[in-house]
């Protein structure tokens, strides 16, 4: 990929905090105009990486360019291309939502009337008009997050960093944030998103870097990653507990993988072998069970969880 199509090119980024190597040689190539997911558990080095790329932390070693501009020697120019929505809302909690956006609009260079207009428009677009006069400390997590993203697009950035944008949100707020991210990317902004949830990276990102203990341990499209990581799972809850043995037999024959009995006396879980499509296997399994006359109360397909991704990539279970 040529230099100019890359929003971020990072080589060997390192950052220590005292004795701890928070980031230990991270390489990234983020194509422009896409959502790039950085996936990893707490403490993997995601936030530190983002803070370095957003010019908030100076790397101890390595170098990076953002749209071809050097992160260290040309930091001011990088700042004029990026916005950051941090993990903890970067807003003034004592001020109202409206005041926060007016303040930031002024700092981006809008004149007073234009700043007020932009603030009101953004609040409306994000469904926050009713709360515009309330202090941010009275906002819910979802509202705060939206205001934070609104603040990041006062001036449309070429690159937007979203650090764990949905951690701690309820499912509805999470879906709204996802919609916002899709809309922002649709208008041409590149988004670098960190997350602890494989599902979120899968939903939004066109490429994912998996990061653990400060290093990138896998990189690719969500499809590549999942197939390399393997196993989805199928969970079945039966109507009659006494049919479980029979059901297990059928699933073992129908599926490539092992079938385990759950603690729940009517439930069993099949782990699929890598490289199989969970949905295809699932519908096949459901058909076989029906044909054998086994009554199924509940049936669910599971993506490989982040734990499984880590188990498979690092050979250890990550807490």
């Amino acid at each position, binding site marked *: 990929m040529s230099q100019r199509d890359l929003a971020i090119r990072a080589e060997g980024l390192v950052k220590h905090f005292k004795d701890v190597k928070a980031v230990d040689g991270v390489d990234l190539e983020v194509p422009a105009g896409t959502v790039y997911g950085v996936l990893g558990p707490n403490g993997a080095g995601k936030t530190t990486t983002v*803070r370095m790329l*957003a*010019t*908030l*932390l*100076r790397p101890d070693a390595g170098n990076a360019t953002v749209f071809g501009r050097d992160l260290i020697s040309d930091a*001011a120019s990088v*700042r*004029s291309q*990026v916005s*950051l929505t*941090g993990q*903890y*809302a*970067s*807003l*003034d*909690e*004592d*001020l*109202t939502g409206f*005041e926060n956006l007016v*303040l930031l609009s*002024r*700092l*981006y*260079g*809008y*004149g007073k009337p*234009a700043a007020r207009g932009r603030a009101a*428009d*953004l609040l*409306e*677009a*994000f*469904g*926050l*008009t*009713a*709360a515009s006069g309330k*202090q941010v400390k*009275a*906002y*819910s*997590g979802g509202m705060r997050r*939206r205001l934070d993203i609104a603040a990041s*697009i*006062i*001036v*449309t950035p070429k690159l937007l960093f979203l650090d764990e944008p949905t951690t701690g949100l*309820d499912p509805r*707020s999470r879906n*709204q944030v996802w*919609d*916002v991210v899709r*809309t*922002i990317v*649709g*208008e041409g*902004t590149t988004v670098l998103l960190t997350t602890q949830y494989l599902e979120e990276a899968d939903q939004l990102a066109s490429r994912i870097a998996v990061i653990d203990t400060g290093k990138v341990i896998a990189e690719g499209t969500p499809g590549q990653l999942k197939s390399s990581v393997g196993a989805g799972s199928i969970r079945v809850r039966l109507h009659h507990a006494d049919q479980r043995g029979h059901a297990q037999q059928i699933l073992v024959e129908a599926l490539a993988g092992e079938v385990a009995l759950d603690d729940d006396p009517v439930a069993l879980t099949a782990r699929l072998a890598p490289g199989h499509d969970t949905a295809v296997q699932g519908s096949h399994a459901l058909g076989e069970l029906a044909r054998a006359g086994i009554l199924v109360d509940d049936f669910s397909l599971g993506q490989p969880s982040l734990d499984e991704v880590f188990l498979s990539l690092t050979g250890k279970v990550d807490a």
Partner: protein
Amino acid sequence: MTVTQTTTKSDADAPAPVEKEHLRRLLATGERPAPPSAFTSARAFAWRSMLKIKHVPEQAFDILLFPIMMLLMFTYLFGGAIAGGTGDYLQFLLPGIMVMSIVMTTMYTGMSVNIDINKGVSDRFRTLPIWRAAPMVGYLLADVFRYAAAGAVMFGTGLVMGYRPEGGATGVLLGVGLLLVFCFSFSWLWTWLGLITRSEKTVMSISMSIMFPLTFLSNIMVDPSTMPGWLQPVVKNTPISQLVDGVRGLFDGNVSTASVATTLIWSAGFIAVFGFLTIRAYNRK
């Protein structure tokens, strides 16, 4: 039977949905304006501080009540013992106690800077293409307003108690002006501390351990010539004593240019040294 009504923050007052079309339009029109001038951005931050006073009015009590308390307490507590009468003592004490209580409140600036960092809002400011010193200068500008208000309140209280400035209105205004210049400059010590310390509590305890000796070992309460010989040269030459000499002289109409000049030199020194350290710490954070 009692009915308890619970209100949750999350979904009780659920916000309206995101309007995607509107959002798209805003993204398409979000061209970057020319970056604001240093002055405009500092003024925006000063506006922010003023809004905080509006939203958290409790802090005004600190700034206005504390000085009045100090003035009343020290005048009536020490007046008889030190000057043989409260009237004479007030005449001596007022300029000094004004310096003391206002310089003491400068430490709040360091705490505010530290809170911004720990809350994450300063991350946002630091990714903006603005003059790097703007957030700090903004704080200090708003603080200067607060100090002026505190000065006015103390002076008014003093007048009611019987204080009469020989230096007239000009002397008083110049004296307060000198005090504000010093506070603005001295505060860079706190902005630096606020940036390099871990929590606001640390900022507070370090500030206290600097402010107490600096204000009490001075000519605010008593004439240094009553102190032991070895202590006198120290006390007479601290920046606070020089400032008090200048302010008292201006209020009394018998100012020595030396103390005013020394105070201005100290002020320039504080800005040069701690202004530099502040910006360096801010950039390296």
